[in-house]
Structure formats: C-alpha cells, structure tokens
C-alpha cells in the first residue's frame, strides 16, 4: 500500500501517535473533517473532541483531544493538541472522580480569579471527555 497518510499526534507531554494510516477524522472548530492521503494543504484549530484514526473502514484508535491545531501538508497530517488521551485507556469512574474534585476546587475559589477560569476550562474538558466515553 503506497498511498497512506502520514499522521502524527503530539501533545506537550509526548508524541501519542506517529505512523501511516488510511484516514483520520478530526474535530475542527468549524466542523468535523476527514483527511485522506494527498489532501490539499490546510490548517485549522480544533475544539474538544475525538480524533478517529481509520484503517480501511475500521476505527483503529480513538484519541480525545483538548484544543489545538491540525496542520495538513503534502508530507501528512500533524495534530498539535493541548492535551490528549487515548480513549481506550481512560476509565469512566476516574473521569467522574476528577470532575467532582475539580468542581469542589472551583466552588472554593473567588469568582474572578484567573485560576478559576483555568479550572473551569479543565472541567469543561472533562465533561466532554465523559460525554465521548459514554457514547
């Protein structure tokens, strides 16, 4: 198979995926989009959501990303995520516990502190992660 798309997904912590795949579907801010090999150069920001890596018609891997960028070049697709987790490795009850802990922290803080905004963003992220898991 010569016609494969080179796809890599990196987060600040590490490189989560790098390899050749058939098809990647990613959540762009302006809508979900799919990338096949030889896609036109294209760049977009991402919203919280699931990146699906497809091998043929079958979903090989699902990665949940929080924000970031997708960059399609002739060399392939690169996703730079703020934070990313492989969905198969995430446990629902852990997310639930983290959500509760975050919520408690948010309530203990002042209305307009900057930390609260960061925590709120984190909470939203967890919430959408949970939604993706339940699906």
């Amino acid at each position, binding site marked *: 198979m010569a016609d494969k798309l080179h796809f*890599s997904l*990196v*987060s*600040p*912590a*590490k*490189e989560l995926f790098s390899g050749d795949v058939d098809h990647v579907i990613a959540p*762009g*801010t*302006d809508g979900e989009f799919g990338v096949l090999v030889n896609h*036109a*150069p*294209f*760049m*977009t*920001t991402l919203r919280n959501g699931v990146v699906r890596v497809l091998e043929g018609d079958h979903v090989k891997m699902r990665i949940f990303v929080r924000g970031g*960028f997708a*960059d399609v*070049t*002739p*060399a392939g697709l*690169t996703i*730079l995520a*703020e934070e990313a987790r492989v969905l198969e490795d995430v446990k629902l009850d852990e997310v639930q516990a983290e959500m509760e802990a975050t919520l408690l922290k948010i309530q203990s803080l002042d209305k307009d502190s*900057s930390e609260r905004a*960061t925590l709120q963003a984190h909470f939203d992220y967890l919430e959408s992660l949970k939604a993706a898991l339940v699906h």
Partner: protein
Amino acid sequence: MPSLKDLKNRISSVKSTQKITKAMQMVAAAKLKRAQDSATAARPYAQRMASVLANLSASAGAGGPKLLTGTGSDQTHLVIVMTAERGLAGGFNSYTVKLAKQTISDLLAEGKTVKLVTIGKKGREQLARDYSNLFLAHVDLSGVKGGDYTESALAVGLGLTRRFDAGEFDVATLIYSQFKNVLSQVPVAQQLIPAAAPADAETVELSGSIYRYEPSESDILATLLPRYINTQILSAMLESAAGFYASQMTAMDNATRNAGDMIDRLSLQYNRARQAQITKELIEIISGAEAL
C-alpha cells in the same frame, strides 16, 4: 598537632558528609533520568509548533498580530531569568545569573528600561543584590510535583501575554540553561516576544499549492502565538530541570570523590599520629626500665 580524638571526629564527620553527597548524587541521577525523558518527550511538540509557526509567519507577513511583529519599539525590555529552586549544583545557577547580569547591564548601558521576572528561588536571591529595583514578579516552582511543569508554564505564559497586551514591555527575553548533555549545560538568552520562529525550523515545500485556513489565518495566529510562547516556556523549564539534575549529579559526584580523598588523607595522618604515640609510650617504658 590535632589530637587522635580530634582526627577521629573529623574522619567520621567527613564520612557522614560523604554519605550525604553520595545519596544526593544518586537521587539526582534518578531524577535526571526522568527529567531528561520528559524533556525529550516534549521536543516533538515544540519542533512541530515551531515549523507551523514558521509556515504561518512566512505567509502572514507584516500585517500579523503584535506578538509576532512587535510593538514597533524596543524601549522596555522584560528579562525572565530561569534558575533552579535549590543550590548544591555546582555553577549551574551562577552561570545563568552571570549571563542575566551581563544582558541586563548591556541593556541598561544602551539606555533601555529593564524589568525583571525571576523563575526559581536561586536566581532571585542572586539578582536581588544588584537589581532589586527592577523586579516585577517572581515565580515559585517549589510546589511543582513530579516534574510536571505544564501548569506553571501556562501560568507564566498567560501572565506574560497579559502584561504584553497591557503594554508593560516591548521585548521579552528568556534566559535559561539549555541542556546539551549530562556534562554541559549552556546558559542561553532567547527572545520570546516578538515571537520569532527559529531559523532552523523546517518549512514545508508546498510546491505551488495554496494553504487553506479555517477559521481565518489571523484567528489561527492569534490562538497559536500565546500557545507557542507557553510551549517555549515549558520546554525551557524542562530543559532547565534536566540541566539542574545533571549539574547536581556532577557536583555531588565530585564532592563524594573529594570526601574520599580527604578521608584517605586524614586516615594517614591519624595512623601516623597513633604510631608516633605508641613509639613515644614504648620509649617511655624502655627508658623507665633502663633507669632502674
């Protein structure tokens, strides 16, 4: 001439110092491994980010946001000095501070206004002597657990962009220690704002096709730039941490070896003194017997 008891005490005190330095060396080695791993793991992201930025800024040209093009003036400089929270790491902190002092005095000599932000306790202590009037803020990293600097880097980055938007400075430079390898850490000064993609960042050959942006190019740049700055700060923090442990490991290795040499020397002295005393006692006994 110290007495036998003094020598014995000194030997045992040096021995316990050696135990401590040895333990510190081993702890630093273990932490270095982890810090090095996370610094390496963070590298692909920073590199990709740099090449994306290089592509974007090449096509954005002069009309880009201020974070990219600058305010048009370079009167007020913000110098961010990143050092470790702790010492006992050879010249690690001092070299960075030395470069910082050099940079600051150069800027002051040119008549620029300099503001100072320190990250890490050691740098603040050393700079407070000469430049306490320039201090703007200090970031404490002692609360960071397990080498996860993501949140601290984010906080620093956000603070930086906020100050920039408020017009508090024109140019921001980050001074930190770059981790070359275990034996060498080089202090470097890196310009953060206006953000410039490193010259060696790979740009993609588009072979005539046109990039499409969604949403618009400027929107992407506006979200990308603050993140790029955060990423730079994060990778600087990770490199600095790895460098600190490497430097501490080397320093403690030297200290352990030095303590070993000292113990040898002291033992020799102790044994000589002991033998001299025995000889002296023998002479006393023999001459006492002869006198009878």
